[in-house]
Structure formats: C-alpha cells, structure tokens
C-alpha cells in the first residue's frame, strides 16, 4: 500500500506535445510547470509575459483552442494535445503587423509594452466571438481582465474599436496569422 501511494504521489515528468502557432512543439516537463513557463522557458517563446501569476493581471493571456485563457493558471501537462496561439502567431511572416497589433500602435495603446501581449490576445479572442464589437462599455468590460499601469486604457479602447472595424472590412479571423492583402481568407 505504501509503495503504491508513493508511486501515485511521485511527481513524474511528462512529455507534453502541443500545437503552437500552427507548429507541433514538444518538451518533457514536471507537472508543476505552468503553461506560461512552458511557453517561455521550454519553447523559448518569450512573447507571452508573466505578471502576477495568480490570474489578476492578464499579461499571460494566450488562446487555447481559439479561446483566451490565462496561461499562468494552467499546467502544461493539462493541455497535452491542444492547440495554442501566442502573440508570436499573429504578425505576418514578413513582419507586417496583425490588425490588432497595428491598431495598438496607431492608438498608442501601449507604453512600456509589458501588458500588451495579454491585451492583444484577449482582444483577438474577444473580436473572434464578437465581430460586431463597437460599444465602449462592452469593450471595457470584456477587456477588464487585463491590467495596464501606463496608458489609462483610452488608447487601448480606441485600438480595439479600430481593430474591430478593420477585421469587419477584411472578414479575417483575428485568431489566424495575418496575411497582408487579406487574400484567401477563411
């Protein structure tokens, strides 16, 4: 009995394979590895930022199977086999910014930039499910899960509204990697 319990409580390492920004990625990790640290340390994708590590600041927001989640409140082992999009998966291959990223630049929706990847990923998830977004109060509420200590949020609000308009014009899914010119969408 004792030996069985020991084997059940021994923190074995696990092989975790996920699709990140369209590519299969794999690493062996301890169960306690947070998805945020898995992305940053094991996969060297440091675009996803780590702020509070208890779900308040939103800097670590990524898309899991197309929906925004907190990567700091998720264990890497728990998402084996799933599909992940990080901020690195948005700009076009030639470096052209994604409409949401471009809107943040146009509206000065960032200053230090620490919170920006989280805001951008939250916005992408939100706009995918609410392509008609234009109401200030609704956008504020939807983005309220992310904290910015620099901008005062006005620029961020303007950026999300601009991105919504641009995406409506092109019909692009904000969760997909940007394709300049908008060709072959969907």
């Amino acid at each position, binding site marked *: 009995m004792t030996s069985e319990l020991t084997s059940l409580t021994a923190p074995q390492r696990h092989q975790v394979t996920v699709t990140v920004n369209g590519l299969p990625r794999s690493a062996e990790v301890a169960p*306690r590895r*947070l998805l945020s640290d898995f992305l940053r340390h094991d996969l060297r994708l440091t675009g996803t930022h780590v702020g509070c*590590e208890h779900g308040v600041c939103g800097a670590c927001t990524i898309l899991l199977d197309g929906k925004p989640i*907190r990567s700091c*409140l*998720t264990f890497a082992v728990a998402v084996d086999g799933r599909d992940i999009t990080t901020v690195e998966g948005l700009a076009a291959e030639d470096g052209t910014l994604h409409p949401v990223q471009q809107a943040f630049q146009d509206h000065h929706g960032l200053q230090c930039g620490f919170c920006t990847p989280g805001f951008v990923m939250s916005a992408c998830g939100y706009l995918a499910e609410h392509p008609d977004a234009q109401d200030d109060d609704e956008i504020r*509420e939807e983005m309220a899960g992310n904290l910015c200590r620099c901008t005062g949020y006005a620029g961020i609000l303007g950026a999300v509204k601009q991105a919504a308009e641009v995406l409506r014009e092109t019909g692009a899914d904000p969760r997909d990697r940007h394709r300049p010119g908008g060709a072959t969408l969907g």
Partner: protein
Amino acid sequence: MKPSPFAYHAPEDVDAALALLAELGDDGKVLAGGQSLVPMMNMRLAAPPALVDITRLTDLDHVTVDDDQVTVGATVTHERLRTHPDASRACPLLRQALDWVAHPVIRNRGTSVGSIVHADPAAELPAVLALLDGSVELRSTQGTRTVAGGDFVVGPLESDVQPGELATSVSFPALTASTGTAFHELARRHGDYALAGVGVRVDLDDDRRVAAVRAAFIGVADRPLVVELTDALSGQAHDALDTGDAVGHARDQLDPNGDIHASGSYRRHLAGILLDRAVCDAVAATTSTQEAA
C-alpha cells in the same frame, strides 16, 4: 510564485478517477478548470501531493435541462453554462449570477461545479445553489450520495466533499413563471470578487402579490448567507413594493468583516442597497408580471 511539486494523473473515465481518488485519500485533489486552485497553489496556500485532472472525463461534460431541473456536469465551464439558452430559460438566476462571475478569460476555463466545491464566501454560484435549494451529486468508489444545496458549503473554502469523493454534477431547480430572480453585486472592477452581493428569489401568488422571498448574500459572511424575507414582504403588490422592512431585517442579520477593500459597516450598508435593487428586479422578472405589463 510557482507551485510545489505534485504528481499528475489524467484518468480517461470516471471509474478510473474514483479509483485514484480512493487510493490517494487526503493526498488527492481534483483539478478541473483550476482557476481557483492554481492561484492557491502558485501562492503556496495549497500544496496537494497529487492532482487528479478530470477535464478528460467526457461523461461529465454535459448540461441537461428538463421540466424539473438544470443539471451541470463537473467539467462544464462558466462560459458554456452562461451562454446555454435552455439553462438560462429554465433557471434565469444562473445567467444572472454567471454574468458577474470573474472575467471572460477566466470563465473560459473555470468550471461552475468547481466554483461551488471551492466554496469561496464571495463566489456567486455557491449562493445560487443555497438560494434555490439545488443539490450536488458526489461519487466515490463507495457509491453515490446527494447533498442538499443549503448543506453543501460548511465553512469558508470548505464544502462537504470528503476525501475520495468527486462532485460529478450540480442540479438547480427549474423555475416557474410566477418566480422571479435577480443577482446584484458591487466590485471595484467588474469581474473581481464582490465587496458584497446578493441573489434574490421572489414567488408571486395568483394575484401577483408577493408570496415568498429569500435572499442569499455573498462577501459578507464566511459562507453564502441565506435570509428569509417572506415576513417582511408577503402580500405586497408587484407594482407597489416597499422593501424598507426587508432591507432592515436583512441588515440585522449581517455582521461582515472589514478588510483593505471596504469596512464592515460599508459592506453591510451596501448589502441592503443591493437587496433593494435585486428584490425589485426579481419581481419585475417574473413572467406573469411581464405578461401583465
């Protein structure tokens, strides 16, 4: 911060999960969405030796609605339940409360059953369960038992789930047209834990007068606090409500603690204001009143 080391198990079916939980006993902790447990582990407030991840148990991924009740499986996320049209129709308080639960990004992963089992005194869903007299189904290798909603939360962050048990589903009664509900709360930032909040259930009689009223307060006690308000409101016409006695009676029952966010007296005052709004909204939400309007 980072969690302390633990063993991870991801069983593929409920029986395997129950066998693991039975063997692990006190060492085992169920992981569903993790939106309450993982922050506690990150802050080392919790350090379970082993986690049993139930998110691969597809048998628990269900919302079933019939004439009597809405039953929610253990892996259903807040957002899925919040946007479930049949569940919202049968038991509108679910949608009314879930609109206040956390931020959208948290709702995408957190589970409704998990929130109830976590039993945070400021969480909305444990109050909904207590207010509506729902029930929780608990399974273990020893069998299945059902706990009444009013008995499920036994203290702050403490529910009636015993070592080896898994909360497989929670049921909420379907409400009739003469019953109205509402949920109000105030937080510094919508989606954060409430300074105070209240869910209200009002039953009207055939003359559209108040027949019964209950309220469940959150954030003002060590668990959801259910207050009977029928004596203070019964007989009042739906279009001529005076909530003064009810607010006074409720405030007499509340003695909340203060903290960095709000003093105890402010929370008590706020709870009364929210109760007034929720009672009026609940009466207005009864279908019989809407049809009469």
